[in-house]
Structures are given as structure tokens and as C-alpha cells.
């Protein structure tokens, strides 16, 4: 298990009582997100779909690397890693 920090974007802070960072102990990104969900009800459903995989409109980074380019939710964590939840932002005039 590693001690990591999950960074919460403003749109999800309603689930974390306003906290912008949540410390977790976890060996992988999946475990880190599960720990986040256990501590703060409702947030996990915004990040993971019913299949337990990352929702299409959510990115998760470990440091500066998108986990989609690593081992996905199985990406291992080391002590002091920062796991950032980054909403996908898109739109357009039509």
C-alpha cells in the first residue's frame, strides 16, 4: 500500500465536503478510487461507470501521465503519488 493524494476538481467537491485533496492508502488507481468512494459517498459513481471502468468524460492522471496511456485503473501507485481526477471539457456552438 502506498500513501497517495487524490486531487478533486471543483465540480466533484460537493461530494467531498469541499475538500480539494483526499489522502488515501492504495496500491493501484482502482484501490485509490475505491478508498475515495468509501470515504465520500456518491463521488465514485461520477468517475466510474456501472461496469467499474472510467467514464468516457473523466480522465485520471498519476503525476503528469493519463492512466489511459499507462495500465488504466490497474496502474500501480508509489508513496507520494498524486492522482488527479480531471473532467473532460468539451462543447461547441452547435
Amino acid at each position, binding site marked *: 500500500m502506498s500513501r497517495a493524494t487524490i486531487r478533486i476538481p471543483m465540480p466533484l467537491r460537493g461530494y467531498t465536503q469541499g475538500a480539494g485533496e483526499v489522502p488515501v492508502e492504495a496500491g493501484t488507481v482502482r484501490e485509490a478510487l475505491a478508498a475515495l468512494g468509501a470515504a465520500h459517498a456518491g463521488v465514485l459513481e461520477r468517475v466510474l461507470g456501472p461496469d467499474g471502468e472510467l467514464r468516457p468524460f473523466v480522465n485520471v492522471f498519476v503525476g503528469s501521465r493519463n492512466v489511459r496511456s499507462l495500465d488504466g485503473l490497474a496502474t500501480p501507485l508509489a508513496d507520494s503519488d498524486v492522482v488527479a481526477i480531471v473532467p473532460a471539457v468539451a462543447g461547441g*456552438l452547435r
Partner: protein
Amino acid sequence: MVMELGVTLRGRLERWAHEGYPRECCGLLLGRVGDGVVHVADVVQARNTNTERAGDRFELDPQDLLRADEQARSRALEVVGIWHTHPDHPARPSATDRAQAWDGWSYLILSVGAQGVQALRSWRLAGADFVEEAVRPS
């Protein structure tokens, strides 16, 4: 909510919007939120990764959002919103904007034409719909 946006930052956004015309441009608003006020302390540009439909769609590079978030945190600020342009269209959210919007952020839209920015308005989700938030100089 009310947005406070200084004249200098507003001018920077208007210049970027004009320079990017006729492509949709986007970026982040850094600042603080409190007492019903979104105070914008800085603005940054981000890449629009939707190169196939850059004239009427944008997809903000998540790496740029991550970078902006780090930049904000290092200055005790937050990413408080998104800005993007509507070339030759009004500064109000489209159905596409609505479908992909997140609670808790301001969505600043600049209507821009060949001669420059024609309007700048800010919006925020309230339930299922966008409501406008006034923009005033800080």
C-alpha cells in the same frame, strides 16, 4: 453568482478569441469562489484537440487542464471555470455545451467575429439548465 473579471484579463481573452477566429478557442479561468462571487485572478489558454471540427466544436486538452490546475494550486487558486469562443454565434450555451457541462464551474463564452469580440457572457449550471451570471470588472 457574480463573476469579477478585470479589464486586463478580459482584454487578454478578447485578443485570444480574435486571434483564434474563425476557430473555436478555449482555456481555463483561475481564481477563487466565495460569498457568491467568482473572482477570476488569471486566464490561460488550452489546446482545442478537436481539429476536425475546430470551427464549431472544442475539446479542451486534458493535459492543459491538469497543467492549469497545478499552476492554480501553486498560487493558492483554483480552476474556477472554462472559457471558449463561439465564432459568428451568440455568447450563449448550445445544446452541445449543455450536454458536456459540469456543475460548479463557470462557463464564459465569447461571441467573436472577424472584427473581434461582440459579446462576453458567463453561465453556470443550475440543475439541468444554464443560468447566466453577471460579469463585472474587479
